[in-house]
């Protein structure tokens, strides 16, 4: 069983596209190449459908998803998130006070590069910063409360095109480049990168799962995964990816995770927010 799995993975690892080297950071050029790669590889998938991940690749899965999405399991998380979002902190302020447009319909602008701190700030990090600034304890980044809040905020942003900016700041470019490096770097005993699965083999199978394309992969987060029997955030998604290739996961919202989310979100610019999503 295990041997078969390893063999399957080794086969997958060897099926790589032609490669070229690059030494300069040029997000716009990366963006064009990335989109071109996916749209040429999957000419029948409408551009906006890439955000539906594995369902854009497999008709059988898609039918089950459509049946489930008619009354989706993340509904309870969205309701809980709204209730949390509308409930003031002990000091009387709310989440709305921390965000542009009172936090409604803004998911597509995250993560962003904060020129003050010199860091990439994801929506999840911004929410915990908001809590701490108002004297509240930060939430665990993986699920539960954080997943509910981000589910609600994504829900209010559905359909809005991702609009990630990389400001003209060498530190922002460096963060983008680090995220890109993290994405393409092989790790874990199985020697897989994020790209091994989500660039080189989307639509293929890893064990039983249909692999999602990297283009638009962040758009559905947070997600309700049947495998988890519940909601998970971007952190949980990255952590489980690492574990699957037998790489020790980093801490949730580690700078490397933030950078890779920054890179992937920039690659998804123009695609609509579809979160919260439901996944197998």
């Amino acid at each position, binding site marked *: 069983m295990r041997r078969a799995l390893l063999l399957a993975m080794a086969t997958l690892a060897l099926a790589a596209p032609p490669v070229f080297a690059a030494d300069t950071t040029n997000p716009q050029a990366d963006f064009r190449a990335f989109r071109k790669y996916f749209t040429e590889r999957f000419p029948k998938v409408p551009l906006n459908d890439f955000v539906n991940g594995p369902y854009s690749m497999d008709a059988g899965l898609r039918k089950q998803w459509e049946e489930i999405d008619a009354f989706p*399991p993340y509904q*309870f998380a969205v309701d809980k998130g709204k209730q949390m979002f509308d409930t003031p902190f002990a000091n009387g302020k709310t989440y709305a006070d921390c965000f542009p447009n009172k936090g409604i319909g803004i998911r597509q602008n995250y993560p962003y590069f904060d020129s003050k701190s010199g860091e990439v700030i994801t929506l999840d990090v911004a929410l915990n910063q908001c809590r701490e600034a108002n004297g509240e304890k930060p939430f665990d980044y993986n699920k539960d409360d954080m997943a509910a809040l981000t589910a609600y905020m994504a829900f209010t942003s559905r359909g809005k095109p991702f609009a990630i900016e990389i400001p003209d700041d060498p530190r922002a470019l460096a963060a983008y480049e680090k995220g890109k490096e993290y994405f393409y770097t092989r790790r874990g005993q199985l020697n897989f990168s994020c790209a091994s699965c989500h660039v080189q083999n989307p639509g293929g199978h890893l064990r039983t799962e249909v692999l999602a394309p990297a283009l638009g992969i962040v758009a559905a987060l947070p997600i309700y995964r049947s495998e988890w029997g519940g909601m998970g955030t971007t952190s949980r998604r990255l952590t489980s990816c690492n574990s699957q290739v037998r790489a020790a996961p980093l801490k949730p919202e580690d700078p490397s995770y933030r950078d890779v989310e920054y890179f992937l979100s920039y690659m998804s610019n123009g695609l609509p927010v579809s979160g919260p999503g439901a996944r197998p």
Partner: protein
Amino acid sequence: MASTIRMRAVASGDTTEVQALVQHPMDSGFVKDAKGDLIPPHYIEVLEFQHAGKTVFTAFWGPAVAKDPYVKFSFKGAQKGDDLTISWVDNKGQSDSLVGKIM
């Protein structure tokens, strides 16, 4: 605490289509927790829908119904604006109920 029940009932002509989702762990009794102990079975046994004092749908469920269970059915005789009552009881005697309006 929010209700455990979400319901959508839509009348079209004489027929009303009902969909409902209930927040419930539906523990089968076969799954172990993080410590390796079996999580005891905990599942909804009966889910009932009533319209105008009459039971229009009953579900008898076992532990094989998925977590946060979903059901869809349709019945005749109701109109837009009517009340539809939904209630459930599980194997531990816990219960919840709700009245929704048919749209």
